[in-house]
């Protein structure tokens, strides 16, 4: 692992990697060893900062899936079924959604999954083991990417194999351009981008508010709706824009521990997908708000932190991704306040407050616009 992952149109390499999984098992059996597969531990305790890519990736801790235990044996059998299935899809040039694969596994007898979480997680494991992407495996998520509005032009390869240019203000309605699940160069490319920054917004309500108030035009912003925890394609889309067009990324979410994690997954890489952080994360992303300090500074309406909120804030204090002084201070402040707030709480001061006052003030503070 570690090498830069690029989307391959040629699947020989994928097949080779998939076969190597089968060979590992086969060779173990032939040597009369108990077969096992090794992969990094995929948890908070095993992510570390990668200096080279400026993102958080899995560390050195490994776990073994061994046929010594019954659970391990099941995992190996399922892995064999999945790799065989992927190889078959590559051969017949088809793809399937993760959900479809889950339903197909119904026919896998002993190897069938008991929930889609199991099959999704195993597909991720396989990415980790082979350093391939699930797109390489012809597996795609059923969720699509989120919406985009702003002054950029995208060229998309449509299913009719025709290139189509889409301007993300003029050619789209108020709901914006919808990010496809595949955002690799063979699918989309950025023709032009005349914006100063990207604002990635957690909630649909706030996205629509900014659209209605024409914030994209008045502040030369590209608005991206994250739809909660952003899909891989959304994160990849943001990263590509940031990388290829050199556009700064700002993340605008609610003020609660779950929203901080949304930021972390955009900026640092998510724990679940730490094996491809360098591919999905945008290390230069900045957190715009709403911060716990904003609650105080803007005197926002609040809710009390729940037990779960407090627990996850405390967990974030030990999360290696939140160890800089900004986050430490903000998280500690929020624990002290015992309160949380939503993006849309800014409406307390009127519908235009967010676009007329809050955002300009914050953007100026961050040096994105001049005061």
């Amino acid at each position, binding site marked *: 692992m570690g090498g830069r992952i690029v989307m391959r149109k040629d699947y020989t390499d994928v097949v080779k990697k998939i*076969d190597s999984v*089968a*060979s590992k*098992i*086969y060779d*173990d*059996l*032939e040597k*009369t*060893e*108990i*077969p096992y597969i090794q992969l990094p531990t995929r948890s908070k305790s095993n992510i570390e900062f990668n200096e080279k890519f400026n993102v958080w990736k899995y560390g050195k801790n490994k776990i073994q899936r061994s*046929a*010594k235990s*019954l659970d391990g*044996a*099941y995992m*190996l*059998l399922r892995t*064999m*079924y999945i*790799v*065989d299935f992927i*190889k078959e899809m590559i051969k017949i040039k088809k793809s399937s959604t993760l959900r479809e694969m889950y339903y197909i596994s119904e026919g896998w*007898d*002993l*190897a069938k999954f008991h929930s889609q979480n199991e099959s999704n997680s195993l597909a991720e494991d396989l990415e980790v083991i082979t350093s391939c992407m699930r797109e390489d495996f012809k597996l795609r998520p059923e969720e699509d990417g989120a919406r985009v509005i702003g002054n950029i032009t995208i060229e998309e390869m449509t299913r009719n194999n025709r290139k189509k240019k889409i301007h993300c203000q003029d050619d789209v309605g108020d709901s914006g351009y919808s990010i496809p699940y595949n955002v690799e160069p063979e699918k989309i490319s950025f023709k032009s981008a005349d914006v100063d920054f990207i604002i990635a917004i957690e909630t649909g309500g706030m996205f629509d508010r900014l659209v209605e108030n024409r914030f994209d035009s008045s502040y030369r912003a590209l608005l991206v709706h994250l739809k909660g925890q952003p899909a891989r394609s959304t994160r990849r889309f943001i990263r590509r824009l940031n990388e290829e067009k050199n556009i700064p990324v700002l993340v605008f979410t609610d003020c609660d521990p779950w929203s901080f994690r949304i930021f972390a997954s955009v900026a640092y890489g998510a724990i679940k997908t730490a094996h491809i952080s360098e591919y999905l994360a945008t290390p230069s992303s900045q957190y715009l708000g709403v911060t716990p300090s904003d609650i105080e500074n803007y005197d926002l309406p609040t809710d009390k932190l729940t037990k779960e909120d407090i627990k996850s804030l405390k967990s974030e204090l030990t999360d290696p991704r939140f160890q800089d002084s900004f986050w430490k201070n903000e998280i500690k402040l929020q624990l002290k306040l015992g309160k949380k707030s939503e993006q849309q709480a800014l409406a307390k001061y009127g519908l235009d407050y967010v676009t007329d006052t809050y955002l300009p003030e914050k953007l100026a503070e961050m040096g994105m616009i001049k005061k």
Partner: protein
Amino acid sequence: MSKITAHDLAKKQKEISVAEFFERNKHILGFGNPTRALITSVKEGVDNSLDVCEEVNILPDIYVEIKNHEDGECKVIVEDNGPGIIKKQIKHIFGRLLYGSRFHAIRQSRGQQGIGISAVVLYGQLTTGKHAKVISKIQEDRPATAIELAIDTNKNRAEVISRNIVHWEKPSGTRVEINIMADYKRGRRFVYEYLQNTSVVNPHAQITFKEPDGTEHFFERTSETLPRKSIEIKPHPYGVELGTLIKMAKHTKSRKLSAFLKNEFTSMGDRTAKAACEKANLERDLNPKEMTREQFLALHKAFKKVKIMAPPTDCLSPIGETLIKRSLKYETKEISPEFIITASRPPSTYSGSPFQVEVGLVYGGNLPKDATVKVMRFANRVPLLYQQGGCATTTAISSIDWRRYGLDQKSGKGMPSGPAIFLIHVSSTLIPFTSESKEAIADVSEIENEIKLALRICARKVQHHINKKVKRKKTREKFELITKILPEIAKKSSKMLDRPVPSLDAVITKIMDVVWIEDLIEYEKVSGKTTEKPVQTTLLKGSSEQHDGGAITKSKIMVVNYKRTSQKFNLYAIIPEDAVVGTVNPKPAKIKSNYIKWNLDAIASADKVDINFELAGLEEGDFDENDIYIENINPSYVIGADKWEGE
């Protein structure tokens, strides 16, 4: 008012006739109500028959019939194949209260359980006015005697109404017919239960029960072996009462106190007799007939201060675990229980009386899961049907926390509920009953303790059984799955790579990483003349020639080494003490009365060894599960056997 004098009183003072005594006390004698009267009547008859058959080594074949007349009157008929009663004794046995041979003897017998069959005759006479009829035959080539008799209640003597010589098909036996007032409708269930339970603890007896409507119930004989004969013993000094001691001294032939003690008591030798005399401050050559009350009192007190050996225990005749198990199995076959476990304690004593406790536990099958467990209580092979609440057996069961053993119990105390039947048998020369109706064993701490200990052994066996089953099941599941999953993994990978499917035996061995022991038991019917008699390598005590017929129990133990390295260890198989060991393969290192030991040669990884042995002298099903132990190997390596803890 005139003064009442002693003379006036004397006019009112007279002997109370037995009949009056009986009439007033019939509730404590088991005739309290028409239901109890019925069951007591049957019981007195059947107990007598069983005792007398055993005494002369005849396998009892007992016939009980109840003819239901109108107005609550029944005719109870009990017939046996015993030795019969000689003509002149018939009237005494059936026509005099408190007459009998077993009352004075110190040995285990059923007779002490009840007041006697004559009480039934009297009850019948008092309630119906009808005479009892007895037929008895003592020799095959002689005719039978039929006597009709009543009891002269003033004299406590039989009054023979008629005596005839009759022809009777039976080689020998006794039949008694008594009319009594009884509630058959209510009593029926108890009579049935009593006879069924009797059959459980008397597997050598065959009992037929015919109901008034002609329905016949047959309680089969499941053992051809008569119980060990109990030997009569002399009283033990710890148990003797002062009055008895004085009476014994009056009648002894010994002229010196020391001789009296040695001759008339059990467990008394020179040393203990001397010690007792010294403690009582009495001369050893004192004439016992001339001793004063004070001297007796001193002696009686001295007994308690001297350490005297426990009485011999061959006066007891326990049923034995094999027979208890067999009987329970037979009686519960419709329930198809999951397992039957038995335990027995060595004989013990209380107040100079020997006793012994045996227990059995039937678990699972169709037994109700939410009802209180059923308890079958027995004293000297006689079922106890009433007063369960006040019985020492109940106290003992209630004191154990059964929740660990798959039963429900509120806060771990009291009677548990769940799919189980408990059997508790106490045998003793003198069962301490709570009252004269003799339906509950008194809370004598020694007896209660022994019952608890026996139940604990049982509970441990249950736990052991459950643990073994769970562990084995888990490993078996893993084994079955691994042997399915692994070939699938191999198949898929070889298909993808287009390579031949590799052999998996060695890998499966490594994954299992255990020594797997499994056993199988089969039975082979043997007719008396089979040519394939087992080669007897040893003959064990107590199991003698009469084992023609029956079944040969064939036990097979398979040992598979799923460890990576070869394994060498010793293996023990527990066998019932009353079994005869036949062919054993491979050659055992040792055969003892209760186990067979093998020193197994090193078993190579993935290799298998079969052990076979045969047992004779058991019925089919007596031995249905091997109890296997291992030695000189880490017990955690082994599935299907436990660590040998020594004998």
